[in-house]
């Protein structure tokens, strides 16, 4: 059985700088975790160290600062080196605008309404929705084959976690889904690739993904202001590329 644990990064500056003075948080512009985001990741590290609930064979992380810093904090609890994987990055706003002050971005480009124009992109070299989901689906296929039968931890972004649901449940991938997700900072989402269905063995058919947990944030529920934890949804991921 192959297990994937998808962990969203801790609270990042890009989650709280919503006044237009933040930077577009790509590879260059991501300012990383806030003190609260670090505290959230430390809670997760301590939980994983205490429970031993994940016996990881590999730890992969997005190379965006907010995800990479999260991975650095939790890595000791898993006893694993971190393998960088660019395909775990959030939907890319484009190299041209990466690091730009968001207010300037809005002066230069209109943010498309993706429900009306799903093939639009913020900047000419940014990803559109379909390209993003295709990149993530290709990553899941690669990782699942490379680590068949193993347990893999992926430290990544809300949009990638949304995409896992769309890909494994076979939701239409070229338009914005007709539902939303609200993955909390440092929450865990677990998938397993299985051949058996409860205590009834599946006699035939291809292996099937099972959603085991979504948005498990037990370790941060008693942190102050948890209810204000930065929201994330598929639609928001497309409006400035931040999650």
């Amino acid at each position: 059985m192959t297990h994937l644990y998808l962990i969203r990064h801790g609270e990042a500056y890009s989650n709280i700088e919503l006044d237009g003075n933040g930077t577009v948080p790509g590879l260059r512009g991501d300012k990383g975790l806030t003190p609260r985001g670090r505290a959230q990741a430390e809670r997760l590290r301590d939980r994983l160290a205490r429970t031993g609930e994940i016996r990881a064979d590999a730890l992969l992380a997005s190379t965006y600062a907010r995800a990479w810093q999260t991975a650095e904090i939790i890595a000791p609890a898993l006893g694993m080196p971190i393998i960088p994987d660019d395909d775990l990055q959030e939907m890319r706003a484009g190299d041209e605008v990466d690091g730009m002050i968001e207010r300037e971005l809005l002066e230069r480009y209109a943010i498309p309404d993706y429900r009306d124009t799903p093939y639009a992109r913020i900047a000419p070299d940014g990803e559109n929705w379909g390209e993003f989901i295709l990149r993530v689906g290709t990553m899941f296929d690669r990782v699942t084959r490379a680590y068949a039968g193993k347990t893999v931890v992926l430290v990544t972004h809300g949009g990638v976690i949304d995409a896992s649901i769309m890909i494994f449940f076979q939701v239409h991938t070229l338009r914005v889904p007709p539902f939303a997700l609200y993955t909390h900072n440092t929450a865990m989402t677990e998938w397993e690739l299985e051949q058996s269905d409860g205590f009834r063995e599946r006699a035939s058919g291809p292996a099937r993904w099972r959603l085991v947990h979504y948005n498990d944030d037990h370790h941060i529920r008693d942190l102050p202001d948890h209810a204000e934890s930065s929201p994330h949804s598929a639609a928001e991921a497309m409006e400035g590329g931040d999650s």
Partner: protein
Amino acid sequence: MSTTRLHFIRHGEAYSNVPHDGRVVSGMRGDKGLTPRGIAQVERLRDRLLATGELASDVVLASTLPRAWQTAEILAPVWDTPTIPDDDLHELRPGESDGLPVEEARERYGCADFAEWAYRPKSPGGETWGSFVLRVGTMLDRVTRDYAGKTIVLITSGGVIHATFLVFFSLHTLIPPQAWFATENASITTWEQRPWRNQPSIWTLLRYNDTSHLHG
């Protein structure tokens, strides 16, 4: 429009969940209710909810299937409101095989696997996959209209929780989905429908299969 929130609670471990000799098809007739372990799971959930107050709700609905109703009875002290019985929260209805030993039902009616036989019931009089999901979708429409803007607890079975994904994700509802679920006994799954900018409101999955009270 304000937020409508649905908390689904799966029943505790039931005799029908445990492989054993003499296991029977567990519809309204055959359901033998919760095991001692199942009762303990639900008591832990009740204690968690009483301690945290996290599932403050306006309405509590429960399936009348014995394993769900028994779960609702244990959880009742959590809320001030009486539990409202709702037959539309039943697990997929097996038909005339209800109450027969599982082995005997298998010999008599075959082992219907919905992946191959989506349009056939488990036994005559039972629901097909499509009719089950339609019944759940109709229930969700009714409940969210009757209690718009409220927080509603639904104590039910795994299949209803899974069918809700198909409805809210707009997946194909006549055949089982490509991915599946691992909903544990006495777990919580939460959905929310809230105003979303100028869009028609859509459903947001807030958590799936929260069983932290069983693991901590």
